[in-house]
């Protein structure tokens, strides 16, 4: 498999604090790689390091097979676009001027691709409006347009939907899907909003305390996300005794609720509960989603 980005035991220390600790990850070509982690887990630090904004303390990374220790890394970076934390746009310029500015920095021979890119991100009608007067969603889209002007194969988006309204989120999601599906651009996207990420990502990397805990594809995630039945009973102690006898995997959620994993025949459960003078009030099937998978993986509260 061809990888756009690989890191090998990458570390970044700030005095005594270790933001990245022996981080090893692989982003396949053509993927939308969802980077999942809590606040302070190291997502933005990793993105800053691979974008060249900070030097790693130890370890290395490679973009398109070229190591960061190689001087040729700059050529790999030409194939990359990034929106790191906030979009890199000049607020006193229009959308078109921002793209012209970026075209000059890249050394593009002309500005021919600009109208197409503006149309692609939905900013073709902004005219002479300065970027400082754009909405947050428009600024994010302009930031992505600036990242796209060099025709990159790989784009890095750090929390692109933070602070956006629902419509803005949908617009960015559709834009990212279009980039990936129509243009084959590999995307690395970090986000707290797991529900949104689950609609986008083809691969996931879970980071905790600067370390990659797990990497897997969306298909693998689906396979490992356990189905369960959530039951509401009158006596969870009785339920626990019954489930232990039936050798079922379970999780007590409260005085009245519990999740039962794996296959279970409800009629059998009801009969066994009746023997313990316990009634089944309610039951429904539930899939483990990205959020619950992540919580179970790293422990603690939701992101």
């Amino acid at each position, binding site marked *: 498999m061809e990888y756009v980005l690989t890191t090998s035991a990458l570390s970044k220390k700030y005095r005594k604090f270790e933001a990245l600790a022996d981080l090893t990850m692989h982003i396949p070509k053509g993927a939308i790689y969802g980077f999942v982690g809590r606040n302070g887990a190291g997502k933005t630090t990793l993105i*800053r390091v691979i*974008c*060249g*904004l*900070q*030097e790693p303390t130890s370890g290395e990374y490679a973009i398109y097979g070229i190591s960061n220790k190689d001087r040729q*890394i*700059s*050529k*790999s*970076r*030409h194939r*990359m*676009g*990034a929106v*790191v934390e*906030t*979009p*890199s*746009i*000049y*607020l*006193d*310029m229009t959308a078109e*001027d921002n793209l*012209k*500015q*970026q075209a*000059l*920095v*890249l*050394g593009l021979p002309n500005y021919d691709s600009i109208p197409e890119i503006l149309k692609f991100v939905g900013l073709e009608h902004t005219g002479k409006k300065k970027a400082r007067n754009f909405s947050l969603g428009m600024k994010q889209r302009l930031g992505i347009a*600036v990242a796209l002007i*060099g025709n990159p194969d790989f784009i890095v988006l750090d929390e692109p939907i933070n602070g956006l309204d629902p419509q803005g989120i949908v617009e960015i999601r559709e834009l990212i899907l279009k980039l990936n599906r129509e243009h084959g651009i590999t995307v690395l996207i970090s986000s707290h909003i797991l529900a949104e990420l689950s609609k986008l990502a083809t691969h996931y990397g879970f980071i905790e305390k600067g370390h990659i805990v797990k990497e897997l594809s969306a298909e693998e995630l689906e396979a490992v996300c356990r189905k369960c039945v959530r039951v509401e009973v009158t006596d969870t102690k009785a339920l626990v005794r019954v489930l232990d006898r039936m050798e079922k995997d379970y999780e007590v959620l409260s005085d009245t609720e519990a999740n039962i994993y794996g296959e279970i025949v409800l009629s059998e459960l009801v009969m066994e509960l009746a023997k313990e003078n316990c009634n089944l009030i309610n039951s429904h099937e539930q899939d483990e989603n990205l959020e619950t998978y992540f919580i179970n993986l790293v422990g603690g509260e939701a992101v």
Partner: protein
Amino acid sequence: MMKLLRAGFRRYFKNILFWISLTVSAVIGLASGKSAYDNAMVDDIYVIIGFIVFAVLIALMVGREFSDGGFRNKITLGHTKGKIFISEYIVALCVCLILFFISAGFFILLNISNMKKILPELLTKASIGYILFTISMITIIFTTSVLISRKAITVVTTLILVLGLYIVACELDTALSIPEYQQVIDWVDGKPVLTQEYVKSKNYIDSPMRENLIFLFNIIPSGQSIQYYKMIKPLLNPNNIIIFISEEKMQLLNTLPYYSAGTILTLLSGAYIAFRKKDFI
């Protein structure tokens, strides 16, 4: 590097701040030129106003590169920090020199008849010196701006620096101008009379402190500005027939440019190293 230079120049020329600075520079040139022509008054306050224009322009433009993510973007695209620093400096320097030459151009235009009387060698050395201390001031402002990441703090700091250096230069000028010996004044019939007696001035600064202060006075661009102003002012007087300066002042004309060159190289080297080590977060 050419890509960064083209992008940098475009950014300045597209900004209204540049055009305002251009207008102010033209006004400074006209005002100072007219003042020199009408009254033989060459006031160094115009130079300080010019430096303030440079400070505001560079601080805001460099500050915006930090705040709007311009530097961050260029690094992400694969440009090295060294190239970014050098290109940003060249652009800032060239733009400020454009403002300087516009200002100087108007000054010269209004005083060309008087300046023709000045020896070419003198005029050339004074011009080179003026340009170099201007570049020195631009370098001080630029290096301060690139090392401070926050736009607002950069503007305030560079303004304080420009004004502070001018105040220091004025104080040094005053202190160094005190003669070593002063004639004693006697009072005869209620009127002051100069005697033949000389006493050492109380406030005269002796060596080695004197050498240190002279060094400081020569190295500060505002200090050089005051010294050039004192040299040039009598030369522009239309009533002067013979245009010459003393051997001592000629020696000063020869050495001051080296102070500027030293300041420029030292500051640029230090700032270059610091900028390359900077983390862009």
